[in-house]
């Protein structure tokens, strides 16, 4: 009994501290909850509206609790809705974007890895200067190169073509992928390369057998970065390409601004979601690795 009393008096301080801790936790989680809500509400609104009846939207406003449920907007947005004169929905532009993003991501990542490998493990006179020059590309706004690109693509006959956009995105993305890979490879011990050289391996064999197997973390970061960046890119898509050659981002804007006077919020919402789906999926499945890859610098 005496022990219990003693314990209580001792616990008093701890109880106060515990209570303070509890309320600070409540505050932190409360704030976090509010912020995530603010952040996610637009997504909810778009998702809801893609399933609502158009008259119901007009009646109750864009932001309202849904009172109807229809799937019509989705097939319409995908297949039949008229954008800029062509009544084929989003699918053509979706595939344009896919046709542009996948090769551009693969090529720019592959080149970035090789660049990074050379700039970190096979340095030569002037390689640091070269790297610094490439870094400039990271800080250069895309608008600067817009006109030169238009000129160049016209010259080589790739204007208004998905292939032209692939080329643009490969080159524009190269500074990022090179930076990522170079900074990652710098942490691979040089002794590994030396040991491999004595073992009789050359430039490519060392890359395939030693460097590449160590690369998954940075590979995931680079691929996610490039894929979402290229998919979401709008400026080049809308300026360099027109009509049926535009990527989905440009088509979305065309859909929301052009054509009839009626605002088809349900179809627009569905179209936006179709356009947002691939990057969202990439984040869902790769986001965990993305964070890990960015934070994990050294290779043990």
């Amino acid at each position: 009994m005496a022990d219990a009393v003693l314990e209580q008096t001792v616990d008093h301080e701890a109880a106060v501290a515990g209570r303070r801790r509890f309320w600070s936790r409540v505050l932190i989680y409360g704030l976090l909850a509010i912020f995530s809500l603010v952040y996610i509400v637009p997504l909810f609104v778009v998702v809801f509206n893609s399933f609502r009846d158009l008259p119901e939207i007009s009646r109750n406003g864009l932001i309202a609790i849904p009172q109807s449920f229809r799937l019509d907007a989705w097939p319409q947005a995908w297949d039949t809705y008229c954008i800029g004169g062509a009544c084929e929905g989003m699918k053509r532009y979706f595939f344009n974007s896919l046709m542009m993003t996948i090769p551009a991501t693969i090529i720019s990542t592959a080149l970035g890895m090789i660049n990074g490998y050379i700039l970190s493990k096979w340095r030569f006179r002037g390689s640091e200067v070269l790297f610094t020059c490439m870094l400039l590309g990271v800080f250069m706004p895309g608008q600067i190169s817009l006109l030169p690109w238009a000129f160049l693509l016209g010259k080589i006959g790739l204007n208004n073509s998905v292939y032209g956009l692939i080329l643009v995105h490969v080159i524009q993305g190269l500074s990022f992928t090179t930076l990522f890979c170079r900074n990652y490879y710098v942490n691979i011990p040089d002794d590994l390369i030396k040991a491999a050289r004595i073992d009789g391996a050359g430039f490519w064999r060392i890359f395939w057998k030693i460097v590449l197997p160590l690369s998954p973390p940075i590979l995931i970061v680079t691929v996610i970065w490039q894929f979402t960046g290229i998919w979401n890119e709008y400026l080049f898509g809308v300026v360099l390409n027109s009509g049926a050659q535009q990527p989905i981002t440009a088509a979305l804007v065309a859909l929301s601004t052009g054509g009839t006077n009626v605002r088809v919020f349900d179809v627009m919402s569905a179209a936006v979601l179709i356009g947002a789906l691939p990057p969202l999926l990439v984040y869902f499945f790769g986001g965990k690795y993305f964070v890990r890859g960015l934070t994990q610098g050294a290779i043990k």
Partner: protein
Amino acid sequence: MSSLTIRNLRKNFGAVEVLKGIDLEARAGEFIALVGPSGCGKSTLLAMIAGLESVTSGEIWIGDRLVNSVAPKDRDIAMVFQSYALYPTMTVRENMLFGMESRGVPKPQQQEAIARVAALLQIEALLNRKPGQLSGGQRQRVAMGRALVRDPLLFLFDEPLSNLDAKLRVDMRTEIKKLHHRVGKTTIYVTHDQVEAMTLASRIAVMHQGEVQQFDEPEVVYNRPANIFVAGFMGSPAMNFIAAELTTIDGKPAVTFPLANGRTAALALHNGAADRASGKQVVLGIRPEHLSRHNPELAGKGGIATLTAPVEVVEPTGAETMAVMRFGELEVVGRFAPAEAPRMGEDMPLAVDMTHACLFDPATQRLI
């Protein structure tokens, strides 16, 4: 035939001269240790032998081939790195296979080599593990195994034991010695640890500031160091250096130097008789183990000189006891058997074994 010959080898990094004309030669089957403090150029020298650093001037011959501009893979060498440099994504077996695959060694021969080396190093049980699953000592073994699966003309070791804890280091040292005895390959071994160099090498090259100070057998390097640097670097505790003056006792050469209490010591010299002008300043070098407690038995032996000195610090290590004594301005370390160890504060009668004493020229720092 010599496996490695280095002639007047120089290396500059920009304006910095890292190696200043190295001459070195390893006979077939020899174990050469390159030893020196950090920054002496020993690792650079090894990297140049391996072909990982370019040659500024001079010649490197491996076997009967000038290899100055030969790629590392074509130099017929194998190397063990300080960091082990095991390929982290490969198993132990794949690590050992990598070099053979690169060189297109036939499959049956590869398997045979792995079986042989795994048995030799007792790493059969580890063959399917990744380097991350191995302890430090095991990694060390695998790194050696990767070098041993080839049959090169030359083995290069770059401080292979410095990442291990003290006990393991001693074990692996013995292991390497056994291994070299069994394999009999010419080995160049870089270390900053003079004990490793003494225990392993058939000849030691002591390096300092980009130059080879002495290149000789361990006993010679230890007993007849070429200069004050080598004398101080080899041996622990280090050799005692005492500023002294040449003189004569009864017409025989001797050295004299001041002691603590205003007295001077005069010790007769016993090693060789060069023409030594009386009055010349010299540096007397005495190793700690050549000091002992004076007793009547020793008095009859030749080459013993005596003096007394106050004891300032006593450090027992178990097997032996170190004591710091004062010779005038100097502190001198002695190494005693525990039974005859001094007490702190004692004015100790010392016997100095002058047959092992070294004399150095204070100007040139060289052995006289």
